[in-house]
Every structure is written in structure tokens, then in C-alpha cells.
């Protein structure tokens, strides 16, 4: 039985960048996508996305514009910038390295 997982500190940025790779999305949508793709296993408090979004924006990795959703509601849409794409690549490889290292460690102790 697997409990719902908290987002590991620091991986939220990676997840957001990764989500935005498929195109511009608003904060609510990002949360939805993340939950849907992990079969609701990953629990993200909706609100906690916003500090992260603004931080990424401050770093210049994403950009934000107001737009309209398919339901004709006002929402702020985030999209990846060129710098954000580079950053995503860096974070992805760093994550893979991290996972590989941890798995190796766990295997060796079996």
C-alpha cells in the first residue's frame, strides 16, 4: 500500500517546468496535470504552486500572461522561456543522476 506522496523539496520546480513543456498553462491547470499524470499519487497543495511559479518567473525561466481558458474564464498562463528549456534539461539530468545513485545504493544493500 502506497500512501500519497509529498513532493520532495526542490522537485516542484522540475515538475512545473516539465508540465509546461507541453504548452502554456495556468496555475490551476498545472496542478491538475500533475495530479492526473501521477494517478493522484502526488499531492500538491494547490496554493503552494504559486510561490514556486513566481520564483521561476523571477529567475526568468517562465513567463506569464493573462489569458482566457476554454471555459472563457480569466487566468494567468505560464509558458517556458528559452532559458527555462535549458534549465529543464539541467534539472532533468540532475534528477536522473539522483535517482540512479539512490537506486544503486538501495540495490547494493539488498
Amino acid at each position, binding site marked *: 500500500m502506497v500512501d500519497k506522496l509529498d513532493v520532495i523539496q526542490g522537485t516542484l520546480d522540475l515538475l512545473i517546468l516539465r508540465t509546461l513543456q507541453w504548452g502554456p498553462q495556468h496555475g490551476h491547470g498545472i496542478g491538475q496535470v500533475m495530479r492526473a499524470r501521477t494517478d493522484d499519487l502526488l499531492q500538491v*497543495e494547490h*496554493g503552494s504552486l*504559486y510561490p514556486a511559479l513566481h520564483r521561476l518567473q*523571477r529567475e526568468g525561466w517562465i513567463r506569464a500572461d493573462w489569458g482566457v*481558458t476554454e*471555459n472563457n474564464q480569466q487566468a494567468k498562463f505560464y509558458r517556458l522561456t528559452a532559458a527555462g528549456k535549458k534549465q529543464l534539461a539541467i534539472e532533468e539530468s540532475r534528477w536522473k543522476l539522483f535517482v540512479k545513485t539512490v537506486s544503486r545504493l538501495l540495490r547494493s544493500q539488498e
Partner: protein
Amino acid sequence: MWRRILWWFRRKDHEQDLDAEIRSHIALETGEQMKTGVSAEEAERAARRTFGSFSRITEETRDVWRFVQFEEFCQDCRYAFRALLHNPGFTAVVVLTLTLGIGATTAIFSVVKAVLLEPLPYKQPDRIVRIVENVPAAESFRGIAMRLPAMSPEEFEWWRQKTKTLSHMAVTMPQSRTLMLRDTNVRIAGSRVSAALFPMYAITPVLGRGFSADEERSDAHVVVLSAGALQRYFGGNPGIVSQTITMDEQAYTVIGVMPDEFGDAAFWTPYTVGTTREGTVTFVSVTARLADGLSMEAAAAEINALGHQLREAPFKPGAAPRFELSRVLDEIVAPVRPALQVLVVAVGVILLIVCANVANILLTHGSKRQAEIATRQALGARRGRLGRQMLTESVVLAGIGGIGGIVAAYGGVVLLKMLATVQLPAFFGPIRPTSLLPRVGEITIDPVVLAFAVVTTMLAGVAFGLAPALRLSNPQEVAAARNSGTFKITGPTHTGRVLAAAQLALATPLLVAAGLLLHSFVKLTTIDPGFNAENVLYFDLVLPEDYTAERKLAIADELDSRLRSMPGVIAAGFTDGPPLSNRSSARPYGGYDPPYKEPREKTQTQQIEQRSVSPGYLRALGVPLVAGRWLDERDRTMRAPAILVSRAYARYYFEDRDPVGTLLPTRSGPALVAGVVDDVRLNGIDKDAPMAGFVDPHLVLEFADDELAKRGRKRGEGGNRHFLTGMSGTLGYAVRVNGDPLAIAAGVRRVIREVDSSAAADSVMRMEDVVSNTNAQPRFYAVLVGVFGAIAAAVAGIGIYGVLSYAVAQRTREIGIRVALGARRGEVVGLIMRQGAILVAAGLAIGLAGAAALTRYVSGMLFGITAMDISTYIAVAAAFALLALLACFIPALRAARLDPLAALRHN
């Protein structure tokens, strides 16, 4: 970084933007939720729930793009101000406490900085030294071993030629002169100095030059003025150099002007060996500068070797040096260093008490704020954030207290300077109006002192704010508070109580010392000096030193009669030794040989004080006549000169006989006792009235001439120039008037000038001020220690109050239950008072024991009481206990007035 600044400037837009964004999120999520078929309200509630803490997320998001610390600080400050304004009583108590603590600390620091820390305002002051001789008892003129920091003029010449380790040597001799201006004469204080003095201190003249070596002769008649004197007497005229001014009827050419930093002399003239009086043993004060590149030790070794050569004493290696060098800087501050160190410790203790106290008050106050803190935490405030807020409040409090403290320090410095600066006529002390503290003019609140105050304030704010900040922001305690209603803190109450008792214990010795000094001072001021100083004008008549005795007397008599004819004047007269002046007069008219006593008992003769007084002097002073009559002018021509004796004299020599009319055999023939006057404290307010005789100066002069004639010597040309005015060249006058004596001061100056154009009045002041200023030293200590004692007592009282208020706040519910169960008000008051009384008793007991051990350090400053004076101890203990119990009574009363229903509902 750049982007961040831009963001910061557009923060209002972002704020609105974020709001809109969150609203849109909630809207979207509500839409999602509604798909599951719930109502719109239900959906929105769910949306908000999943979103998390609204304010925390806004806060955190804002943190991303702002100068967080700074903004939060501003916000905390604003909040702190609002909170403080909301509790004016609490704020006032804390601010007042801090004002006292920081004010006292800052004022004392400004003194310490000016006196001990600041270098003297000239080049390398630590290289200015003085030669000190350790004279063994066998060679000392007093018969005891002594440290002699002076030398004879001849020795000065010798040293100057021999030494190679001292680059400059200079004599400084204080002198007073009468500066004769167009319409008035003024006495100014200055120095005779060697030409080397100015180069030694490397002081550059503001105008002109210093002295040259060939001006060190008595006929040079050149003078250097201080900038202050130039401003005061010559309107700052820059053309003064090479003009002449008149001092003591002689013309002097001004050759230069020195800056004011250079001591307090108004003028300088060259020192020459010939300017010291003949026939007097004179020592001159010599300062010197170490030659460049030489160490103090090397110079001291040379000086000691040379000194042995000078004394023709064998130099024993390893023996204690006969000659030493001492730093002038050390000499200036050495006498006050211990007293200042005591004051520093005292204010340090006060500041600690203050901090401990304010921490206690903040805790007390904080216990009332649990609801607010719990709410803030529930809204998502993190612990660090809460703690920072609390700390900011402390710092804001400290800041207000610090501003108050700086204002208080300004007042304190003014008071200190006023107390330390004492004007007294030359008869009563050194030549110039003097100060109880060295370098008192340099004491100011300058940027360094201000910086000190600011740093002290900040440290204090953090010190007393830290404990409450940590405690009140602790989540566990907040949680506990949510449940129980108050902060349940067991340890700190104990600490608080110990602290409060410790404050009492610390304050008590200070208060006892203050009590002793005040008691002693009151004793001094309530002593009857034997005369009535009210409505009496005091002044010194200063006559040129080369006037003959006859001329001096003629001028004095003329002035005497002119004064008596002035409107409003009741009586006037002069003397060679005013009362309280500690001027033991070894006048030649004497050797009373009173009858009725065995020779063995006549050794008392040695202790008879003899003063020359004009016929009106004692009357002007208001000395009561006990028997017989006053002296008058006719007595001068009588065969047996008339004298007055004091009551103590009459009692000792005549016992129950009537002395009036008795002829006393004296060395110069019989003298008639014309009257008996009441005892006067001639030698100082703290010394018993001596047996005394008062004689007309004319008779004293006659006697001196007779003595010369008997020895077959002729009177010198012009007579005895030392007569009457002695070394200081002054005569003390007393004028009794109707009303304020200072009202006739200007008239007196005019009359003096009319009587003799070279005469001047000095120290024109109320006799009452003269009397009170002779107590300046005890007054200084009594007021200073008194103020500190009062501060410590007040703060300790607030401490007790704070601890008990805290206890009452904690026990609100318990008290409510007690009252509900039928406890009477008196019982509730008793409950709290008992708690307070234990603290007070413990603190006082320890404090009194400490006082008994420590007050011996002030025993040297006490008059008429001992350091263990039991009445002072009892009075101080009683007063302090009363104050402390009063501080306990207020919270006790508050507890008693608690409405039991409100108290029970308190949670």
C-alpha cells in the same frame, strides 16, 4: 538583482495581480468541484480548502519578489507602534525604565570618555612626564617619607642642563593678575611658564608666537593670551598682537594668542627664577617631554642616575629608585579613576537591572497576548516570523527608550557639570574657580557618545527582547495557551522572582550608600557656622603685590568706610582670613599668655586661632556678641590694645569668671578683652570652632614693627609687603545689606576703582554661596549617588510590580475560583502580598548584608556619621521596603478586584 528591484518598485501591481490570480484559481477549482455535483457554496469551500492557507501563500509568494527582511521589518515596526500606542501604561513604564537606564549609562560614558579615554588635545600626551622624587624620611622637611613631584628653581636649571633623555623641560606656575581695562579691572588667572612649554606641547599659536628663550627675564613684559581671553576682554580683535595691555599697572606687549584647547589659563607670561619671592621655600612644578624615540624606561633610568648625582647619594643597584618619571596624563585622571570606575559599575548594574526588568514586563504583558499570538500562528505565521515580530517590538521600545535616554543624558551632563564646577574665592582653595572633575569642559554628548547610546539601546533591546521572543513564539507553549488560557511557564516565573529579589539586593547597597552620603550632607548643611550668611556679600579685594602694608591698610580702611556709607549697607568689614577658609593663620600678634591655667595646660596656646579683623567685620558677618562690646576705631590708640575672644576661649581659660575687662598678658604687653563673641567655625564647616582671638590689623602691624625694633632691626623700605594679604594678595570682605547682596555688586566694583585705580574685586558672590560651595564635594557625591540610588530603587520597584502582575495574570482563574468559593478581598490581597513580601524580605536582607560589607568604601566621604550608621540603615530599609510593598500592593489590589465570573470565563 536588477529585475528584483524593478519588481520591488511595481509591488502594488504584483499584489493585485496575485490576488486576481488566486481568485481565478479558486474560480477554476470551484468549477471542477461543481462537476462532482455539489452546490456552488460547497464547491467554493472545497476549493478554498484544497488551496491551503490563503494568507500564508500570499505571504510566501510576496516573499519571492520583495526585499523581504526590510519590508517585514517596516511592517513589524508599524505594528509595534500600534501595539505600543494601544497600551499606553505599559509603554510608559517600559520607556521610563529604559530612559533612566540608558540615560544614566550614556551620561557616565560621556564623562568616562572625556576624562579617561579621550587623548589630551596635543601631540603625544603620553610622552609628557614629570620628575618625582621619593624623599626618604630622614631628608624630608616634614620628617616623613614623601613623594615630591616638584623641585626648586635651582634644581630645575640643573636638570635642564644635565638631562639628555628629556627633550623639553618647562616650569608652570599659576598666577593671578589684575587686568586693567578702560572702564574696569578684572582678575584673571594665568601661568608663568618657561619658553619651552609651548614647543613641548607642539601647540601652534592662533596668532603671533610663543616665548623665546631670551624673553625669560623679569623685564621682558611680554604676554601670550588665550583665544578665550582675547574674545572676552578685547572683542576678539585680531590686531592685538604687538599691542600693549596693562596688568597690575604694568604694560605688557601681547606677542601671541594660543588656542583654547590649551588648558584653562587666560594668559601666560615668561617664568624667570627671579619672580619667586625671596626668603620663601619655593618649589616649581616642572613638566617635560621624552626625547623622540626614547622609551619611558630608558629615560627613567637616566633620571634616577642623574638624581643620585644631584643628591650626592650613592647609587645602589636594585634599590627602589629615588627619582622616577610619572606621566602627566595619569596624574590628571588618577585621583578620579577609582570613583569613575565605581560609577561605571553602578550604571552597568542599573542597566542590567533595567534589561532584566523590561524582559519581565514584556513576559507579563505577553501573557495577556496569548489570544493574539495563537491567532497569528493559526493564520500560518511561522515561529521565526513571530519571534522576529516580538524582537522588533522590543527594539522599537528600546529605540524610544534610547531617545529618551539621550535626552536624559543631556540633562545629566548639564547637571554633572554644574555640580562639578565650583566657584570659590582664593581663600578657600586653589587659585582658579575649580572643578571636582578634571577636564570637565571636555565632557559633551558627541557623535561617539551618541553611537554608544545607540549601540547600548540596540543591545538592550535584543537582550531584554530575546527571552520573551523565544518563549512566546514557542509553538508548544502557544498550543498550551490555546488550551489553558494563559502561558503555563513554570521555570520563568521562578527566574523572574529570583531576578526581582536580585534587583532589590543590588539596589539596596546603592541606596544605603546614597542614604549615608545624603545624611552626612544634611548634617554638614545644617551645622551652624557661627555666623549668619544671609544678606551678606562676599568679595576679595586684590591689591598689587608691591604695595606697602601701610598703603594696603589705608586703602582697606577707606573702602571700608565708603562701603558703610553706601545705601542699603548695614555693616561692612575685612579680614585676613574669612571663616571656613581652612587658613591657619600664624600671625605674629599672638602668644596670648592667659592667666588662671597651669603651665601644663597652656600648651593649648598653640591652638589659638588668630585673625585680623576690621572693627565692622564680625558685625557684618552677623557673629553674635556674647558679652562686652565690639571693637571700634578708638581701640587703635589705646594703651592696652582691645581684642575679642571666642566663647570657647573664654570657657577654657576663664571658666566661670567674666573675661570682659581683663588684661591679658601677651608677648607684646597686655591686651584688653573687650568682648566675647560666639564660636565661629573658622577652619571649615566640618571642623569644630577653635578657640580664637580677633585683633585689629593696625595693632598687628604695630606689633610687627615693635618686634623688628626689639631685635634692633629697622623696618624695611615700604614695610612688610606680605602683611595682611599674604601670598594670595587678597583681603576678604563682608558687606551686610538689606535684600539681595548681589544687587550692590556693581556699586562695590565702582567704589573699589574709585578708592584705588589698581585695586580689583575678585569672587564677588553671596556669602551663602561661599558657605554652600565649601560643601561642593560632599554635595557632588550625595547627588550623584543619590540619583543612581533612586533610579535603582525605582527600577527594582517596577521589577517587583512586574513579577507580581505576572503572577496575578497567571493565577486569574485560581483567584476567580477562590473568590467564587467565598474568599474575601483581604484574603486575596494577603495571598499576593505574602508572595511579594517574601521577595522583598529576601532581597532586602541580602542587600543590607551587602551594604554592610560595601559601604566602608564611602566612609572616607562621610561627616558626622559612620559607614554603619544604624539610623540610615533603618531609614533606607524601611523606605525601600515600603516602596517595594507598595509595588506589591497594586497587583494584589487588582487581584482582589477581579470579578469572579469574568475570571472564570477568562479562558
